[in-house]
C-alpha cells in the first residue's frame, strides 16, 4: 500500500466527471456500468461530497460474504468483489453501513469500488482535484 485515495469535499463542485469516468472504466462489453462513486449534496451551500467505498479495515461486507467473493487486495488495500464467485445474495449491500456496495440492476451484478486495481480513473478525471490518488508520504508531509 504505497498510495492512498483522498476525498476532499470542500473542493468538489458536483460536476459528476467521476461518475462518468467510473461508469466507462467499468463498462462490460461496451455497456456502461453503474457508477461506484457519486457526489451527494452535503447539506450546506455549495458543498458536495463524493461518496465512495471507504475500504474499511474491519469491513462489514467481507464479514457478511458467505461465499468469500469479497477479498482485500494486499497491493492496493481495496476490497475487491469477484463477480465469478458472487451469488447475488445482497448480504454486502445490506450490511455496508455506508451503502457503498450497490446492485447494478442493468447488469444484474453487485458492484463496489475496487480503486480500479490501483489507478482510480475518477482521480484522473476530477477537474478540481477533490479526488486524489497520491503516495502516502506526500499527503502525510502536507498535513504535517
Amino acid at each position, binding site marked *: 500500500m504505497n498510495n492512498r485515495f483522498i*476525498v*476532499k*469535499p*470542500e473542493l468538489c463542485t458536483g460536476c459528476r466527471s467521476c461518475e462518468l469516468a467510473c461508469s466507462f472504466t467499468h463498462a462490460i462489453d461496451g455497456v456502461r456500468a453503474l457508477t461506484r462513486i*457519486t457526489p*451527494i*449534496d*452535503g*447539506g*450546506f451551500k455549495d*458543498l458536495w*461530497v463524493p*461518496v465512495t467505498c471507504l475500504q474499511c479495515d474491519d469491513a*462489514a461486507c467481507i*464479514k*457478511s460474504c*458467505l*461465499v468469500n*467473493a469479497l477479498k482485500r487486495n494486499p497491493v492496493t488495500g481495496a476490497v475487491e468483489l*469477484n463477480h*465469478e*464467485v*458472487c*451469488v*447475488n*445474495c*445482497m*448480504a454486502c*449491500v*445490506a*450490511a*455496508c*453501513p*455506508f*451503502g*457503498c*456496495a*450497490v446492485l447494478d440492476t442493468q447488469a444484474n451484478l453487485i458492484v463496489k469500488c475496487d480503486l480500479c486495481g490501483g489507478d482510480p480513473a475518477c482521480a484522473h478525471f476530477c477537474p478540481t482535484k477533490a479526488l486524489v490518488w497520491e503516495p502516502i508520504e506526500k499527503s502525510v508531509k502536507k498535513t504535517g
Partner: protein
Amino acid sequence: MIHITINGKVVQAKDGEMLLTVIRREKIDVPTLCHHEAVEPSGACRLCMVEITKPEWDGWCDYVTSCLYPAADGLIVNTHAKKVNELRSSILDMYLARHPKSPEIRQLAAEYGVLKTQFEEVVDGDNCILCGICTRICDTMGFHAISMVGRGHGKEVAPPLNMAPTACVGCLSCAKNCPTNYIEYNMENGGLTIWKKDFEMVACTECGKTTITKEFAEYLSKNRDINIDYFRKCDECHRKELAGTMGRISNWDREARS
C-alpha cells in the same frame, strides 16, 4: 507452472487446476449450465466436454468434462472439435426433449443447431435440469435448506419433507443462480415467499426500500458479528447519511478557514 495447449495456443496453468478454469481464463466460450465459481464443480450438465490428447497417446483422444479434469503438463485440448460439438448438440437434444419449454435451453440448443429434438418431448415436465447448483450454493453458504430428493424419474430439488425449511433464511441465492430460472419466488408488499416459506423483509427506516429478509439480517448479525443497526437503512439512505456527516465536517473546516 505447467503448460497446456488449448485450441493450438500454449497457455500456462497451475498443476491440478481444473481445465475449465484455464479455458475460461483464456476467454474461450465453453457452454456450461451447472458451473459456478463459488462451489465445487460437479460435472452434472456435461456441456463443458472437451477433447483431450497427448503426443504420446498415438492419436488416441479422450472426451472429458473440463470442469472436473485437472490440467496436466503437455495436455492438448480442443474445445470446439467436430466431435465435441456433436457431443454437445446431442446432449442439448436430450435437454430439449426433457425441458421443451425452457427458453434458456432452447436458446443454447439453437446455438448448437438443435432447433427441434429428435426424441419424444416430455409434455408435463418442468424446467429443472437437476444440475444441483442451488443445493450446492445453499450448502456452501452454510444453510443446507434444500437438497436433492428421490432417485431416477422422481428426483427433484426440495426442502426436507417438502415442508417450509426451517434452515432457509430467504437469501434467494438458489433462485438467482438457477441456470433455467426454475425456482419460483414471490416478492410483494414487503414480504417474500420461497420454498413455501414466508419471510418478512427489512424495510429501510427512512424510505421503506427492502433489500434482504429479517431472518437473513439476523443470521448475518449473529453468525458474522455485524451490528444489527447496519441493516436498518437501505444503501441509498446510508450514502446520504455518510454525505451528511462528511459535509458537516467539511463545513467546519471551511468556516474555520474563512
